[in-house]
């Protein structure tokens, strides 16, 4: 069973939506949405230890579903995602999330 994690920081209000989208994507793969591990990143030290580039971050077996660029700074911040149509969003595009999750789970 893969480990699917949502890492979040309280400074961003995007967690509920990101978690709903992730749980829906997990359920589409026939997995129990309850397998999603939700972990708070609360301090700068936590962020450094986790190589956390922002909230929300989704990882499967420790690998970021949307790998950040090398120049992406680690820290307590809100993560910027691009939707499929190019718009900026605080959460991953649900369709891209399903697609990436599927790719990781079937790899």
């Amino acid at each position: 069973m893969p480990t699917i994690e949502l890492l979040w920081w309280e400074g961003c209000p995007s967690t509920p939506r990101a978690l709903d989208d992730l749980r829906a994507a997990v359920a589409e793969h026939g997995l129990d949405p309850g397998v999603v591990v939700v972990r708070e990143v609360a301090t700068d030290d936590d962020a450094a230890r986790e190589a956390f580039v922002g909230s929300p971050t989704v990882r499967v077996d420790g690998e970021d579903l949307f790998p950040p660029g090398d120049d992406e700074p680690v820290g307590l911040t809100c993560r910027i995602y691009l939707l499929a149509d190019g718009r900026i969003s605080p959460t991953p595009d649900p369709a891209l999330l399903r697609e990436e999750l599927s790719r990781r789970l079937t790899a």
Partner: protein
Amino acid sequence: MTTGTAAPTFQLTDTTGREHELAARAGSPATVIVFTCNHCPYALAWHGRIAAVADDYAGRDVEVWCVSSNDAARFPADSPEAMRERVEAEGWRMPYLYDETQDVARAYGARTTPHVFVLDGELLVRYEGAPDADHDDPSLDAAWMRSALDAVLGGSQPDPAETEPVGCSIKWRP
């Protein structure tokens, strides 16, 4: 900050070095203060809609002032240099003011980026909250902000006068 109360006056510098003094806007039809920043996806998602309001109402002597109050030491993307680079790269027509001491954000009770305050000609706060109901729906076109401005320009009370601001928390200094 309660609507109907006097907006705290301030004087801040924009990315070109020009000073902006709120008191000088007294007697103008309306002024909008938007607490925003560079690094927040909510602020970025709403930015185009806010800029469109500034353009659409400029001919009626309405000014939209953007203010960044975030702690630039912890969030370098919100540094004055980064603000200037963004204004130049994106060709902003709104002033982007730097609230280095965070006194202005504190005085307004700004909580998020973005957080919008619409002021009337007497510099009373007539609307505060979000630009519209959903950062993820561009078709809403900053409807709450526009409706508040229309009300102020028409001499009536905005409805709604207050909404819940949504966005990243203001990054206060430790």
